[in-house]
């Protein structure tokens, strides 16, 4: 008797709960006698796909123009004009989305998540700047990237950053890239988009934290040229490596370097390399010893990085909503938390098994463990290679723009007397 009563109550409660969740039809839809016509809900359409293709076309045109201006025309003024256009179009008009920097995460997610596919336009946004960099150096950074453009415009009083500080700070960008790939691959978060410092400025609305972060970067950017590009940009890290291999490179002088030293302080990004004579024998011996030490330290650094990356998995995995939910449910189940959150109440209403949730969460955490090894190892490798780079010496006769660091902004061109000779000749040739 009691048992059947319990069963009936249980079923009734279940039915009511189902009703709560589904919002079941409790009242039959009306039968109008007056012939009233039911309206249907409006469904305003999103931005049409054709505009996405226009964006890709504009990106392609801007990249081609930027490459031409940097390598052939060599005109800082024209590059500046294109920078302003890119800031207006990709920044304020398109509101900073989609950008190649963030598209990296979509590509990573589509590789790791079989159910997610990137639209063709997003793939184009990711790939086009990389292909252009392989051929024409960092023409994307020069005048196409809206994030670079807004920083380039505020740069008024450039202050030189010592090379070792620059190199050290750049490690942040590698960590950022690794974290962005890890979080995107596990389907947890798109951190590049979440912490995009200038997006609130482009949208003219947004969270206070990001607005302050962006404002600080712009303030620093008045003195230290393009801090986001140099020390944080995860896409810039990929562009750097591709720029090392590019077919054409940015040259300070149009023909030959006369070593006049005039361009020495021209670069606000510390990308001009001075001529280097031969090392003295004593320095050479010290450097060789150091090189051997750092090569031996390389595997240690990789292992240490991997171990560190993997051992923080309990923290990093909480970026995934399932892990956060499982943590919360565990707290409630063990009685450490007496109230419920929207998420935990919502989960309980679905009637899914708690054990299954725990299993899913522990699988995700295991993936973060493995990913932590890979990302940490990668950061360790980069740090090790940076140290090795300190002991490698390369003979250089001329003033050169560093292949990796040069943002192709074109500021150094007019410092070169040979450039002025070229301009004169071009002018006379025309007349």
């Amino acid at each position, binding site marked *: 008797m009691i048992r059947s009563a319990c069963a009936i109550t249980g079923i009734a409660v279940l039915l009511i709960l189902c009703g709560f969740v589904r919002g079941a039809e409790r*009242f039959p839809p009306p039968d109008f006698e007056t012939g009233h016509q039911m309206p249907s809900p409006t469904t*305003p359409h999103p931005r049409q796909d054709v505009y*996405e293709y226009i964006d890709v076309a504009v990106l392609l045109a801007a990249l081609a123009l930027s490459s031409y201006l940097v390598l052939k025309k060599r005109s800082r003024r024209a590059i500046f004009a294109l920078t302003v256009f890119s800031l207006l179009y990709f920044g304020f008009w398109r509101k900073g989305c989609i950008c190649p920097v963030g598209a990296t995460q979509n590509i990573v997610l589509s590789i790791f998540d079989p159910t997610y596919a990137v639209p*063709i336009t997003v793939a184009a946004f990711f790939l086009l700047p990389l292909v252009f960099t392989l051929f024409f150096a960092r023409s994307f950074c020069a005048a196409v990237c809206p994030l670079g453009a807004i920083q380039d415009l505020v740069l008024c009083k450039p202050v030189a950053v010592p090379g070792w500080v620059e190199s050290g700070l750049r490690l942040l960008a590698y960590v950022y890239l690794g974290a962005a790939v890890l979080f995107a691959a596990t389907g947890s*978060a798109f951190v590049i988009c979440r912490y995009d410092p200038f997006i609130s400025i482009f949208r003219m609305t947004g969270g206070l934290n990001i607005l302050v972060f962006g404002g600080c970067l712009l303030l620093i950017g008045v003195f230290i040229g393009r801090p986001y590009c140099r020390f944080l940009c995860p896409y810039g890290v990929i562009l750097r490596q591709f720029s090392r291999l590019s077919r054409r490179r940015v040259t300070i002088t149009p023909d030959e370097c006369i070593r006049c030293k005039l361009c020495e302080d021209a670069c606000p990004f510390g990308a001009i390399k001075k001529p280097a004579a031969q090392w003295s024998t004593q320095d050479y011996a010290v450097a060789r010893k150091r090189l051997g030490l750092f090569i031996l330290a390389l595997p240690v650094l990789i292992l240490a990085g991997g171990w560190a990356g993997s051992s923080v998995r309990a923290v990093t995995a909480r970026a995934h909503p399932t892990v956060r939910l499982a943590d919360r449910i565990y707290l409630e189940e063990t009685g450490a938390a007496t109230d419920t959150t929207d998420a935990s109440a919502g989960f309980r209403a679905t009637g899914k098994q708690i054990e299954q949730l725990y299993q899913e969460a522990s699988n995700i955490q295991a993936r973060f463990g493995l990913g932590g090894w890979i990302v940490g190892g990668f950061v360790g490798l980069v740090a090790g290679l940076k140290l090795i780079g300190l002991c490698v010496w390369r003979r250089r006769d001329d003033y050169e723009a560093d292949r990796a660091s040069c943002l192709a902004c074109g500021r150094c061109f007019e410092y070169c007397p040979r450039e002025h000779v070229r301009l004169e000749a071009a002018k006379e040739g025309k007349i």
Partner: protein
Amino acid sequence: MAEDKKRTINRRHFLRDGLWGASLAALGMVAGASARKRRDTDLVWQIDPYACVSCTNCATYCVLENSAVKCVQIYSICGYCDFCPGYFEPGASVLKPGAENELCPTGAISRKFIEEPYYEYTIDETLCVGCAKCVKGCAAFGNGSLIMQVRHDRCLNCNECAIAVACPSAAFRRVPADRPYLLKGENHA
């Protein structure tokens, strides 16, 4: 150093060309992989109304000052109730419009008499803030015809939707841009 400069440069050039080719091939593979999973239409964010728990996050987490998520009335499901649990406060003394009786904090729902005993409820989107109070009431005691939807004339389609991150029930998902709404009573397959 000077005599083997030529040889060094050659080796370096060979390495650089090799890496250059490898990089181009890698980009080609990425292009091929994304072309194989080809998707012609763009993706946009939308709320699954059956997963929505009508918390208030849609009103507060959107990057827009005025949220892109609004309440939508699915008229074909609506019961046209006199005492609408999405319109009136549960303890409303009289069934008449007025701030003290209405659930909606901005008075965005208008109530129109059709015929005895039916009333039609319409959302004014310029007033709706996306707080989902009416959705909660309608789901709990009514037919559940009021649902939250991302309005695509407002949505910026951020790469990572800030509301989706804050959504407690994973109700947000990416849908193809040519079928951008998940309305109740329609086949979403």
